[in-house]
């Protein structure tokens, strides 16, 4: 006597390279209250259609692999519970604003280049020798950049940002937040070196403060605030360069 479990309908975007555009395929998936969208996708791949392709790994919201657009909103599918996105047909599409390689897999090379462009590492005039131990940093100093250090590189903020959607040359929220994280780290002295990437026309100045990046961010990094602060900080930095001779800086 098998009880028929309640099910949900998943409408999933499919695409193979060379096709003109993606099409949708609908699957029926058994429903449990504690299922996440990723569980549904895995069920489809394991039991219905092994050709369905998507990225995932940790399933606990820390690796950043599984970002996709669910019902039009960019989310981490491993943290997105079916019960919170229930509809006649739950729509699953690849992460918005990125070129699609196949099915739900997008090309993130643009983001990787931007990550590198902001020089995301500690830059110092003089390194402290290892023997002298750690740099002293108070918990308050850590708290200044702690929030912006929590970015898992899921790129949901890029999918949420209409400016990036319009113009892919925009530096974007996550890369800017990472630049901010290092600029504001008390151990770092490299804000000047990050200026070209940050303060350019395609840098923070292209941001019109829509604010959706911070709303969509699954880890509360608040990249929107980081960008606005970078506008202020880099303005000050540029003014200093113009007004003060290099000796005084």
């Amino acid at each position, binding site marked *: 006597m098998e009880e028929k479990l309640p099910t949900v309908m998943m409408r999933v975007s499919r*695409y193979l*390279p*060379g*096709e003109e*555009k*993606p099409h949708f395929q609908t699957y029926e998936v058994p429903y449990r209250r504690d299922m996440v969208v990723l569980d549904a996708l895995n069920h489809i791949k394991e039991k219905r259609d092994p050709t369905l392709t998507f990225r995932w790994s940790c399933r606990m919201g820390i690796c950043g692999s599984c970002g996709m657009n669910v019902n*039009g909103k960019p989310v981490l599918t491993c943290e997105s519970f079916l019960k919170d996105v229930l509809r006649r047909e739950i729509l699953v599409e690849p992460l*918005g*604003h*990125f*070129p*699609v*390689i196949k099915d739900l897999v997008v*090309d993130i090379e643009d983001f990787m280049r931007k990550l590198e462009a902001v020089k995301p590492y500690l830059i110092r005039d003089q390194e402290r020798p290892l023997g002298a131990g750690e740099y002293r940093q108070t918990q*308050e100093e850590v708290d200044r950049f702690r929030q912006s250090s929590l970015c898992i590189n899921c790129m949901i903020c890029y999918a949420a940002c*209409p400016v990036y*959607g*319009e113009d892919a040359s925009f530096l974007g929220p996550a890369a800017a937040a990472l630049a901010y994280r290092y600029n504001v780290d008390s151990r770092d002295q490299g804000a000047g070196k990050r200026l070209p990437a940050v303060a350019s026309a395609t840098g923070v100045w292209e941001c*019109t*403060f*829509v*604010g*959706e990046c911070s*709303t969509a961010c699954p880890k509360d990094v*608040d990249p*929107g*605030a980081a960008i*606005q*602060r970078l506008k*202020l900080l880099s303005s000050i930095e540029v003014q200093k360069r113009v007004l003060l001779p290099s000796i005084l800086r």
Partner: protein
Amino acid sequence: MATKTVYHRYRPHQSPLWFLSNRRYFAFMLRELAGLFIAVYAILIAVGLFAGRFHPVLPGPNGSIDVYASMAWLLKTRGFFVFTLISLAFACYHSLTWFDLFPQVTPIQIRGWKVPNRWVFGGMVALWIGLSLALYVVLYGGKLL
């Protein structure tokens, strides 16, 4: 180094109506639109003030145009009254959303203690009302309407 093969991608394009898909996007576009109304209103006031001080005269099709007189007439029309009301509404909307965003972007700290966002918002609203009242007193000497 590896030579990368050229392979196909599907490149999605953002719809020009992207701002209709989400309440926050729509609110953002309204905020931007508000700027337009505020700008037009500000330019008109500036032109009016300039005209009131220097009384310029422009050549027109039926003789010369007294700019100040034209402005005074415009400001009394019903259409302009409606435009003023709309601009006032937009200005309030823009200002309040700005006050809301400001503390999120620039945290105010007094000796390590962060001023709560609500206090900053309230403080800015109070300052706004206070300055408006002060301006009113200066202009009208306290006489009501």
